[in-house]
Each structure stands twice: as structure tokens, then as C-alpha cells.
């Protein structure tokens, strides 16, 4: 009898808990963000070019700029963001449990992630792909020459899986040497602990920039995987999905239309084309469905610049912020110049 009542008590508690856990009214993410007063944007642990800490304590990078762009679209202020730097093991959990409003980090868009983890990838803001780097004096010119080679790779990422797949398909019998820490991996490679190093090509470029003699290493031309990277949101809020997706589109469209951080005010005053007028909220009301102010795109460009400007600052230039990956002719160039960056029309 005593046992039964205890069970009953437990069941009652459980029921009460699950009842309170169920959201009473589904509030939209936009409303939650507006009420809170700032955006919670999830980035990863520092990764050069995409998101890295500066010695003044600020976050910079291309993915960081996406966060700032969304904050600008909502609040008109790119600084109303709380950056949540989360390790990759718990990145999707932190989005699913509502800690983050969106995920703007180097997460590859895959079928599994898009359909089974309760999140949706909005669009692609960077096309990456896995490649190899070898010492120049090894004389290797192609990945197919890496027969029986030892290759340094980071564990726990798709990079490791791609490497074994590629090795099996091309019967290369590659011996992976796995690492937890990129600094240790680089060191091993530099001391001759492995014949080559594999990573996303953007990562290889920044690794190379940190080597004592960057000129002595070469990135092989082959790309062995597709790594489309882009922001992701929780499933179930299509308005929020649209806001994130169209923020990225606005950055790309602005570059195509020639709107820059410097001339956006001028363009809003005298729009050179109806498309620009629609985009900057001068004409028509295409922004209505997003639930944002009509100046949303104006604020975005004003705060972070267009896609090309962001790319130039954090990816293109080899400066104190950038990692120096060329853009011309790559997949990350505009479609008008042979790349894959393409925005649907603002109409």
C-alpha cells in the first residue's frame, strides 16, 4: 500500500513536471528576442576568419558579422548581440534547448542534420571543402599521390570521416594520425610526424599563415568534400527562419547591386534602381512578412557592409583580422562572376 502511494506521488510529480514543461503559448522567436532586448547568437570556439577573439575582447569574423547583421535587422544596432561561444560537441543541443536563437558557425549543412536534429539550415554563406597540405619539397602535386601516406587530422569532425572515405574509394591506404588540438596537430606536421595535413581549405589557409615558413607548404588542388556552411535555426518558426535567411540574402544582393557600407545612405536617398528602392525600404512593402522595420536591410548594410566587404575583411585580406583566402573565381564569388553566391530577387 505504502509503495503504491509512493508510486502515485512520483507519477503525479512527473505529470506536473511535464505539464509545466509544455509551452503554454508558442511565442515567436522574434518576439522573444525583441522582449529580451538582444540576440543570442551561437558561434564556436575561436576559428580564424569565421569567429575569433581579438585582444581587445571583441569577437570578429564573417560568421560574427552574420550575427551582427541579424541584430541590426531587428534592432538597428549591431551590438545588441550576446555571443555564445559553444564547443562543437554540444552546439546542436544548445540550439535545441533554446539557449541560442540561432547558430552562426562553421556547421556543415547535411541531410541528417537538417532533418533529424530539430534544426533547419537557412542558406549557405560560405562554401568550403576539405583539402590537403603538404611540404613543398615533398614534390607531391596531387592527393592521388598520397599512397600509404600518414595524414594528420582532427578527431570528432566530418573531416576524419571524409578522409577514410576518400582513402577507401581511391585505394590510397592513408594512415590517419588523429589529434584533439589543432596546435598540436600543426606542430606534429611541422616536425615531420605526418606527410600531409587535412582540414577544410579555409582552415588550411589559416594554419599555413601561422607556420614559420608558409612558403614551404602547398595546398593541393583537389577538394575531397563539400562543406556548405551557413546559419541554422530551430525548426518550427518559419518567420524566424525567413529573417535569418533573408539577412544573408540581403548581404549578397547588396553586393550585387553595388550597395556598400559607405554609400548605403546615399543609395537610400536616391535609389538607382527599383530593386534597390525595394530593398532599402524606400518603395513597396516587401519587408512586411519578415515582421521587421522597413529599414532592416539599410541597417544591415550600414552596420556590417555587404557580403563582399565582409569577405574581404575577414577572409580575403591577410591582415590582422583576415586569413587571406582568394575569392575571385571561387565558389564564394557572386554568380555574376562565376561563383555560387546568389540571392533571390527582392520583390
Amino acid at each position, binding site marked *: 500500500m505504502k509503495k503504491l502511494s509512493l508510486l502515485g506521488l512520483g507519477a503525479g510529480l512527473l505529470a506536473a513536471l511535464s505539464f*509545466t514543461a509544455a*509551452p503554454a503559448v508558442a511565442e515567436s522567436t522574434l518576439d*522573444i528576442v525583441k522582449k529580451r532586448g538582444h540576440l543570442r547568437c551561437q558561434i564556436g570556439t575561436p*576559428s*580564424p576568419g569565421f569567429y575569433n577573439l581579438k*585582444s581587445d575582447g571583441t569577437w570578429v569574423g564573417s560568421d560574427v558579422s552574420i550575427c551582427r547583421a541579424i541584430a541590426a535587422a531587428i534592432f538597428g544596432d549591431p551590438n545588441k548581440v550576446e555571443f555564445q561561444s559553444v564547443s562543437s560537441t*554540444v552546439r546542436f543541443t544548445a540550439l535545441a534547448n533554446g539557449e541560442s536563437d540561432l547558430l552562426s558557425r562553421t556547421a556543415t549543412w547535411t541531410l541528417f542534420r537538417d532533418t533529424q536534429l530539430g534544426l533547419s539550415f537557412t542558406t549557405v554563406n560560405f562554401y568550403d571543402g576539405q583539402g590537403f597540405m603538404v611540404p613543398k619539397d615533398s614534390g607531391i602535386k596531387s592527393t592521388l599521390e598520397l599512397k600509404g601516406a600518414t595524414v594528420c587530422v582532427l578527431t570528432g569532425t566530418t573531416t576524419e570521416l571524409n578522409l577514410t572515405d576518400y582513402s577507401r574509394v581511391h585505394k590510397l591506404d592513408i594512415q590517419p594520425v588523429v589529434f584533439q588540438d589543432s596546435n598540436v596537430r600543426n606542430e606534429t606536421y611541422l616536425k615531420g610526424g605526418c606527410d600531409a595535413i587535412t582540414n577544410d581549405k579555409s582552415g588550411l589557409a589559416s594554419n599555413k599563415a*601561422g607556420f614559420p615558413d608558409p612558403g614551404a607548404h602547398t595546398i593541393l588542388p583537389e577538394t575531397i568534400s563539400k562543406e556548405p556552411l551557413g546559419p541554422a535555426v530551430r525548426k518550427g518558426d518559419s518567420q524566424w527562419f525567413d529573417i535569418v535567411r533573408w539577412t544573408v540574402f540581403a548581404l549578397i544582393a547588396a553586393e550585387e547591386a553595388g550597395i556598400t557600407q559607405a554609400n548605403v545612405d546615399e543609395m537610400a536617398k536616391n535609389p538607382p534602381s527599383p530593386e534597390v528602392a525595394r530593398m532599402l525600404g524606400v518603395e513597396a512593402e516587401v519587408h512586411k512578412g519578415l515582421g521587421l522595420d522597413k529599414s532592416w536591410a539599410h541597417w544591415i548594410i550600414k552596420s556590417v557592409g555587404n557580403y563582399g566587404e565582409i569577405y574581404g575583411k575577414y577572409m580575403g585580406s591577410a591582415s*590582422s583580422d583576415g*586569413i587571406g583566402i582568394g575569392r575571385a573565381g571561387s565558389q564564394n564569388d557572386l554568380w555574376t562572376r562565376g561563383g555560387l553566391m546568389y540571392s533571390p530577387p527582392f520583390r
Partner: protein
Amino acid sequence: MADAPMTSGGLLVFKPKPSLPPPPATTGVIGWMRFNLFDGIYSSVTTVIGVLLIGYIAIGFYEWAFVRAVWEASSRNECRISPTEFGTCWAGVEFWFTRFIYGRYPDAEIWRIDLAALIFVLWMAPLWLPRVTAKVIVGLSAVMVFPFLAGYLFLGGERNWFMAIMVALSLTWFIGTMVHVAICLVTNQGLGRWIIQATGFASRDDRLQKYPIIILSLIAYFVVYFLVADWQTVEVVPNQWGGLFLTLVISGVGIASALPIGIVLALGRRSQMPVVRVLCVAFIELFRSVPLITILFMATTMFPLFLPKGVVFNNLASVIVAVCLFSAAYMAETVRGGLQAISRGQYEAAEAMGLSYWQSMGLIVMPQALKLMIPNIVGSFIGLLKDTTLVSIIGLYDLLGMINAVSQDPQWIGLHHEPLFTAAVLYFVACLAMSKYSQHLERKLGAGDRR
């Protein structure tokens, strides 16, 4: 002549020759070296090998740290000493040093951390001054009352009614402690006694003597309360905390709460009451058999899943709670070990004197047991300080997290030896200080044993 027997009044007197000095090979540096370093063939060989090894490492270190050092540069590329070689880039460490210490705390607000640290030092310093009375109260209040003031200084923003009360209390207490210390140093008596004398209550009834103290404290409290009522600082969210500051906050709270919770758990585990005992055993065994990193992951990622949607528990708060519970479980076993070292006779004697359970624990058993436990307690505190580096895995930027960020900054890309060395030095200093303090405490508390 010198060899001729001395005579004095016809008596032959024995006059010893002055003893020869010890052979030069057994005294001074040479003697010391012979006995300690070259005492036989094996000893000589190990000495030579040892000296060569130390010399080799020392020269290597000297070259790395000084000869190849670059002190002024604004990017790692400028730290090159040749086109294909980087020098030891201390410039990068200099550039990042503020971040190592304070994390992403805004530069304009860093004074708040410094101020809190200064207050803490001033609050703790009297413990070393021999003339100060009521050290237990001063020390306990530094642990129990100071955190509210520090917490507000760190966090800032608006105070709710509870924090408003506690911050004022904390400030008043601090001022009171400082006045107390000053009076102790000048007059050799505590603040309380001095107030009683100054107000002329010394000759009054014992029961009346406490009134001037209570009234003065209340007046002081309300004066402080209204003085700081409008004082407000900019809010700095915990997301921006980091560096050594965060490491010390996490381990400090962990250390301060581990001992009291641990004592309660240890007493509970030895309790006669079955429910209390089972609960304590379950808690201790659960937290001790799970690695800290698992508990941290549970606290930061699993726990929010159980909460209603939209309720977000601060990441840092969950980490601190997790660290506290974890270290308390370990501390409980340390304390239990100490309790078991106290002989049965002490418990029985306490009971025979008619002391209640809490009295016998507080007055007889604990003081003896805690003294025995000091090396273990400090050992686990040092362990905890170093364990907090694990929080860098779950995305908090403690000292190690900040160190790791340097090598990913395009400006200093790949720079990680120098920052890691800096972190090692900082940790060494912090741990050595704790260990030295524990030795000081042991000597002081062990004075009774040496008599």
C-alpha cells in the same frame, strides 16, 4: 722547546696541543660537495649526469625565453627573426595579457575587479596581524559576507531588494572590520570593547553593554544603505567574464562552499539517522563516481532540457553549482577521514560533560579534526583550482580558454607556446601561494603540539 713538558711549580701539567683544523677536503663548499655530490662512484656519475641535464635544459630555456625573444611587435609576423623562423613572441603575450587576467570584461569596468580584489586582500590581511582580535569572525565574514559585495561589483546593473540589503551590509561590515583592525593595532582591544568604553557603558550591567554596539551598527548600516542607494554600475553579463578572474571566481566559490557543505555531508554520513545517512551517502557516491567534465556537461546542456521552454539558466551559475557540489562530495570524504582520526575518548568525554551533539562537534571534535585535515583540504583546493580549466571545454573563457584563443587570432595566428608558458607561471604562483598559506596555518595551529 714546544715539545718539552710544561712544568708549573714542579708539577707536570697536561696541556693538549691545539687540534688541527679539519682536512680542507671536508669543510666548506668542497667538503659539502664531497659528502653530498661525489660520495662514491655512483653518486659522482649521477651528479655529473644531473648537472649536464639541468645545464642543457637551462641553456635551452634561456635561449628560448631570452635570446630568441621578441618584445615589441604588433603581429606574429613581426616576431620573425628570420624569413623562415619565429622568435619567442612575448609581444603577443603582452598584447593579450589584460585578456588573460580579466577575460572579455570591458576595459572601462576593470577597476571593479581590482577594487573587489583589493577589498578582499584588506579583509583577509588582518588574519596575519597578531594583535587583531576576533579573527574567526573577520575570516568567516570575508567568506560569507564579502561575496555579496564582490558579486555586485562584478555583475553590476540594478539591485533587487535582497542585493540592496546585502551590498549595504557587506560594505558596512567591511568598514567595521577596517575600523576594528585600526583600533586593535592602536589600543590592543577590539572594536566592541572600545565602543563600550568610549560610550561610558563599561561600568554598566553586562546585559546593557551590548546596546551601544547594536545601535551604532544599525546607524552605520542605515547611513551606508542610503549613501549607496543611488550608486549603480554598468551591468557586465557573465558571458563577458573570463581569464584568471573567472578561474578564481569559480574555484573561489567552490572552495568557500566546499568546506561547509562537506562538513555537513560528512556528519550526515556518520549520522545515526538512516534517511540522512542514505541521502548523504547517495549524494557523495554519485558525485564522486562521475567525472567533473560529465557533471559540467550535465549542468550546462542536459539541465536546461528539463526546464520549461524559454527559461534559460545562466551557464556560469550552473557551472558554479556543479563545481560546488562536486568539490563538496570530495571534501566530505576528507572531513570524514579527519573525524575518524579523532579517538572515541574525545566523543565520550564531550558527552560526559553534557555537551549536545552540535556543541561536542563544534567545540571538541571539529577543531581537532580540521587541524589534522589541513594538508588534505588544501590539497583538494589546489586540485579544484586546476580542475576549473575543464570549463574551457564547455565554452567558458577561463584562463586556459583565453590562452587557446590567442593562436586562433589571425593577428597572432599559431602563437601558443608563449601563452601556455604564461598560464603555467600564473597557475604555479596561485597554487604555491595556497600551499604556503596552508603550511603557515599548520604551523600556527600546530603550536599546541610542539609545546
